[in-house]
């Protein structure tokens, strides 16, 4: 299937089986291994990417569903050597331990801030309810997202 979509800000024109799992396409065909496979059934959030501004599981998506859309993976956040506000906050707030859940968490947080730049604690909790982290009690992660929201809004104003 011939597909046209935007990946991390760049136009893509590819020919790939439409039913190919998006996670495999990203990791194996595009060699972007930042997106992880944690459970393959949409329960852990490690494979989260952003499609048309919404956080989705790439393990539950096929490449055909990208058509005409815009896909962002973790690799697409850093721009010109500058980390995204969320990435900076995760580093600052010690929210990274083993790191395996990190890219999924960051993408979910990014999607949250797209639609809700001023999330409450409750909204943050709910937004990451589908992203599992076994190395922490989610405290540092929630604080990072709050911090990132604060800093992003500060920059804008």
């Amino acid at each position: 299937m011939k597909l046209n979509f935007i990946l991390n800000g760049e136009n893509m024109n590819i020919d790939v089986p439409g039913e190919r799992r998006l996670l495999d396409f990203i990791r194996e065909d595009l060699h972007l291994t930042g997106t992880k496979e944690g459970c393959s059934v949409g329960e852990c959030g490690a494979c989260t990417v952003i499609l048309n501004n919404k956080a989705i599981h790439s393990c539950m998506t096929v490449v055909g569903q990208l058509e005409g859309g815009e896909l962002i993976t973790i690799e697409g956040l850093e721009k010109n050597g500058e980390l995204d506000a969320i990435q900076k906050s995760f580093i600052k707030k010690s929210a990274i331990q083993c790191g395996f859940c990190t890219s999924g968490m960051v993408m979910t947080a990014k999607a949250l801030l797209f639609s809700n730049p001023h999330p409450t604690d409750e909204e943050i909790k709910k937004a990451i309810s589908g992203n599992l982290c076994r190395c922490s009690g989610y405290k540092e992660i929630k604080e990072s997202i709050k911090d990132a929201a604060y800093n992003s809004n500060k920059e804008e104003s």
Partner: protein
Amino acid sequence: MRKEKDYQYIGKELSNDMSYGKVTGNVKYCGDMQSIGMLHMKLKPSTIAHGYIKNIDISEAESVEGVKAVYTYLNTPDTEFDRGRVANYENVPYQEKLFNRHIRFMGERVAGVVAVSEEIADYACQKIKVEYEELPTAITVEDALKVDAVKIHKEGNICVVPEINYGDYDGCVAENYHKSKTHMGRITHLTMETHASRALFEKSTGKLIIWSPCQTAFGIRSTIADFFNMPYSKVRVIKAVMGGSFGCKQETILEPLTAYAAIHLKADVKLVFTREEQIINTMLKHNADITVESKIHKDGIIEGLSVSAVLDSGAYQTITPSYTSTMGGKLGKVYRLSNLHYDGKSVCTNTPINGSFRSWGSCEIALALENHLNLVAEEMKIDPIELRLKNVKNEYEMDIIKKVPIGNAHFKKCLIQGRDAFEWEKRKKECEEKNKSVRYRYGIGMAVSSHTSSFYPYMVDMANAAIHLQEDGSLIVNVGIHDHGCGTVLAMKKIAAEVMEMDIELIELGEVDTEVSLYDYGCYASRTVYCLGNAVKHCCEKLLVKARTVASIALQCNDRHLIYEDGVFYKENNPKLRIDLKGVSKYCITVMGEDVYETYSYNASEGPGVPAAHFTEVEVDTFTGMVRVVDCLSVHDIGKAINPEICRGQVGSGIQQGIGIALCEDIKIHPKTGKTLIDNLKNYEVTNAFDMPDYKTIFIEEEEENGPFGAKSIGEVVVVPVAPAIVAAVNHALGTKLTEAPLTPSVILEALYEEN
């Protein structure tokens, strides 16, 4: 040496090692590794719980385009190995093979396919046809203990571990006698990264290279090299970045398979387990039944304790006999005991293998013992904290089993500070008030426990460091470290940076590569910071001594007249006379004809205890049986928190797993068929970010004098007291005497219905 008030790194917040790489998705875990021509392995699971392979037809699978090999018991060596073996002198059960004809649990691998892609390997696996000759099963421990139970291994199903006896439990006397039995279910470690292994046969050199997220690269090397009869020097094991372990990646599970395929095909082979495979085909935390009996004086002093443990090892004994034995050893760490008895059994069943879990037995013992003491407190109408205060050890008292002092360990401080911070008495009263309502009941509970910071005296605990000053003044540190993702590499770097008084960014510290690293037994027993940290610290100090000598020669003065500060040696009465570390290196190399490096072997002669107490308040919905942790507090005697923020993160992880053990995580195995009913995360409803309660942490930092900067350990003990505290809180809320885990909603409603 800097004073504590001048510390730049120890106790300061710094982001974890490799943070930048992890937050950008650039760090490569084992499963991310890709290379041209890499082959992929997939395994075919059995569909029976016990039996023999009568016939296995791989012809169709072999004919699939892209398949390079199909392995079964028919075309692989019959050699036995043991996943738990770390060193070649260890006495271990040796029950496993690459592929067996005798299948012992549902899901056990019966064949492996290596192909050019995972998809093709998976497709070919489905084309393999297997016929079984089924045998009777022993799915539960009860089944396996029966006199006429089927023998899962020729040596039988039961391994009895040596008893521990101290004093005379049977003969001792006290006014009160209590008995309780605790049952604990299985959980999955649920590391976000599943198991993975990559093996490459390097055609140019005949070397085998293995990448694995592991806790003992040297252990893997020993097993693989012995299995394939290769010199250890020709097997190179590189620890890959680890996406969490909690014990499940400390055993040699996937590596023999990838190694075999790599050697046989002279290729680069990767095997990445799915979540289902991680649950069924690696290891689970043991299910156990532990009976505790105690003789207690009416004032609450414990006269004697007798503990009897039965652990389910799953289909292969692997480390379970050792685990069961070690559990008994934990009994000497917390309470003052004059009389103690411990006996344990490890029982094989036709179910997935159980294995190492965070704290290696401390969790299981704490659940049983703390459950018991909480019930005793209730029966004897003594406040549970008071009961503990009467019986816990004081600092430096002896561990009666290991016969070493527990070090600067503050059980009482943990209990008292925790009680005060948690407002224990106030909450007790508030619960009474709140419990006047019909639907929701509130309760508080607590537990105290400990763990260790080294292997000593269980075995010699040696850690080695080699530190090499580079020509520009930067530093390369070589220490046999396996970071689980919990910040131990960062801790080592901080220690080095603090001692050397240099910028931490100038320090490079890699994880174990058996080809270049000095030997390390493995990163378990929470020994990394204490032992490896000490090795790094002492080695840096030794390096500074050498550097000082070189500096004194270069500056032509007595080394006692030199002051060292922030990477520079200068003469105390003439600061203009100075040389930095770059200068030291240059002088030493060009003038003295030597390089600047040192090595140090640290031997632990202590195993400092790490008291930990957990306090929790729960709300029980008596209509639905749902238990919610309202609030909780973890108190840890950590010695010194080198990475305080990451340590707090670890506390959170311990609480998450403790809640799981106590309330909601249960890998159910069907008692008749042996099928693993929960084989993925659907229906395994681990506490997520929404349900995770708010929690507080208190670190008691009374430095352990032999610890690096006073540090002890925290990585495992964080989970230990959590589950028993929760069980106690539920019992307090409901007025019940429940001693099983997990207390799922249906268990709670059952208990309430029985009460009525």
